[in-house]
């Protein structure tokens, strides 16, 4: 664990939810600050400089998505969204605005702790020099030499497949929206052509997953986007 306890800001209007989220986060050895409203949340994010923000999308004084947009103007602190299941569009908007991950209500403390750990780990790593070598499962990727091997055997990837792979690898654990990936890899004119993305993710799974029908690393967040899980 870090020598200095990580600071986590919880922005949630429901007292009981705040209570158990706080307990779960404290269990991870973090210092917790709470805010009930969007305005208070923004002020606290500025003054306390947290290492992670846990944000409920439905706040009484405004949309959590606006908070993320404001926050992203001056901070790259990881943001974890809490949202209801039927709000795919809200999730996408929040992720496009700069949120890093989301949890669907209701969620268990175990899931919450796992997400918090992952986001904090990424945060602490961001200062280090990034290694050009990434390994997951039986796959090894050397980003400096553009070489991909699976169980020691070289794997041939097309240009787009490689670009997709490196984009996903660059943000492990983070949910990347379809729109985001399409813009990044195919360009802005392909934003509506989601089938391209789906077909190419399928190619990557065929080449790199042990069981392409039940992927372990290139995960689908249905209706939202994709996540690379090392």
């Amino acid at each position, binding site marked *: 664990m870090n020598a200095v306890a990580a600071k986590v800001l919880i922005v949630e209007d429901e007292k009981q*939810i705040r209570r*158990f989220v706080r307990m779960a986060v404290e269990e991870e050895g973090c210092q917790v600050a709470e805010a009930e409203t969007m305005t208070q949340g923004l002020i606290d994010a500025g003054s306390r400089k947290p290492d992670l923000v846990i944000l409920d999308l439905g706040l009484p004084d405004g949309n959590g998505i606006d908070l993320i947009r404001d926050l992203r103007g001056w901070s790259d602190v990881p943001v974890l969204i809490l949202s*209801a299941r039927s709000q795919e569009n809200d999730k996408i908007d929040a992720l496009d605005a700069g949120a890093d991950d989301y949890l669907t209500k209701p969620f268990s403390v175990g899931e919450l702790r796992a997400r918090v750990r992952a986001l904090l780990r990424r945060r602490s790593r961001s200062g280090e020099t990034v290694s050009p070598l990434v390994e997951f499962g039986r796959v090894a990727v050397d980003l400096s030499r553009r070489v991909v091997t699976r169980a020691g055997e070289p794997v041939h990837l097309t240009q787009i497949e490689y670009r997709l792979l490196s984009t996903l690898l660059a943000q492990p654990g983070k949910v990347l929206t379809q729109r985001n990936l399409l813009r990044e890899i195919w360009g802005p004119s392909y934003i509506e052509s989601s089938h391209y993305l789906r077909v190419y993710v399928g190619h990557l799974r065929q080449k790199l997953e042990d*069981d392409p029908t039940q992927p372990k690393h290139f995960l689908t967040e249905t209706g939202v986007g994709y996540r690379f899980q090392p």
Partner: protein
Amino acid sequence: MESPTSLLEDSPEKFTRAQGFLLTVVACAGTTVVATPLLDYLDLANIVMLFLLTVLLVAVRLGRNAAILASVLSVLLFDIFFVPPRFSLAVSNIQYVVTFAVMLATALITAHLAAGLRQQARESLAREQRTRALYQLARQLAGTLTVEQVVDIARDFIEKQFNARPLILLPDEEERPRVVSHADSLMVETHLAQIAMEGGQPVRSEDASGLGYAQLYLPLRASMRVRGVLAVKFVSSPPDLTADSTSLLEILASLIAVAVERLHYVEVAQATEVKMLTERLRSSILSALSHDLRTPLTAMVGLADSLFLVKPALPATALETAQALHDQAGRLAGLVGNLLDMARLNAGEVILRREWQPLEEVIGASINLLGNALEGHAVKVQLAADLPLLEFDAVLIERVLCNLLENAAKYAPKGSPIVVTAKADADAVEVAVMDHGPGFPEQRRDDLFKMFVRGESESSKPGTGLGLAICKAIVDAHGGQITADNRLDGGGCIRFTLPKGIPPVVEEESR
């Protein structure tokens, strides 16, 4: 005028034909009486002029037939009373025969021209009146708000212009013409109206008129389709329609058609708006309800979990209770989710966010999402190699797959595998989820997909009987079918289909 259409009789003759002839005789006699004392002062030539003036006046006032009578009478009277020898048809000088001939010819030509002019004037007057009446009708129809108003205006117009009675028929749901309002007892032959509506051509019936049926059926042709039928019953029978009045009736029919079409679109627009408002209200109620129910459930699940974090650790029995609380709250959340889903799916048209995608992906995502719920069951996915991209709402199809997999895991014995297969045929892809559970009872298999129906009613397994109903609603919305079946070696099997379409092309990379 013998036409039953009173259109051209708008300025009705002041005199009947007999009165006209009588007046002509009186006029000619009068001229004779006036001219006789003048015989001493005037030349015979000028007396001829007086008779010609009479003929002209008669032609202008009383029409062609009276003028012809006046011409002949004038010549006769002139001969008898003025040409020597007087009071006899005989003439003393053969030159007078020329005078008579010229006089008769002049009188007849004058009569013909004057009567023709009079006829033209009357016709143009009638045309002008008709145009004005049509203009007024169009203006009135443009302001109508209901079909009943259209009917009233059309009835007024036809009664005034044609001395006939109209009826408007509009198609019902089965495209059969139905009378709009039964204000009067006019009878229509429905099959003739049907023919007019389907053929888009006017239909006439000569023999029906005596029985009180309408004789003429005009289709109401608007820009998009035939909007109905205008049936007309003429008072006199059989109706002898001139070209003019037929075309007027057709113009009338198309004006009514435009008005009816406009009202139809007003209705459509209003219905759409009401539907949109209802939809908005419903979705806002559902999302408010969903939020209000989910918030305490989230707190319950999380708070139950947080009991495990209490230091020092709680006794084992307390933790067991906490776990049970967690599980029950989770089940309640699933139930609420199902109910809300069902409400949303049942509430009207399902709004699908369809995108082209491989089936494989959503199957993988469903298995991943269920996670622990599938514990103890290996899921085997067997997909045909030639599956095309399909257009579906991934979130909803994921719900279907999750529900089916969850059901399979719930009813099949621990350790038994669950198999998911997919294969394509000519126009659909069929997905099957198979287990080694008890299968489905032979009878009532279709009932399984109804709400609140469960395979075994007294089953000890928790459930509401909503899962399969949700699956059916979703598959139906995609235009597919879902059926329950048993495998040959026992175990349940649920199949659903998704229609193939024409998938978009994914361009290959140049390399």
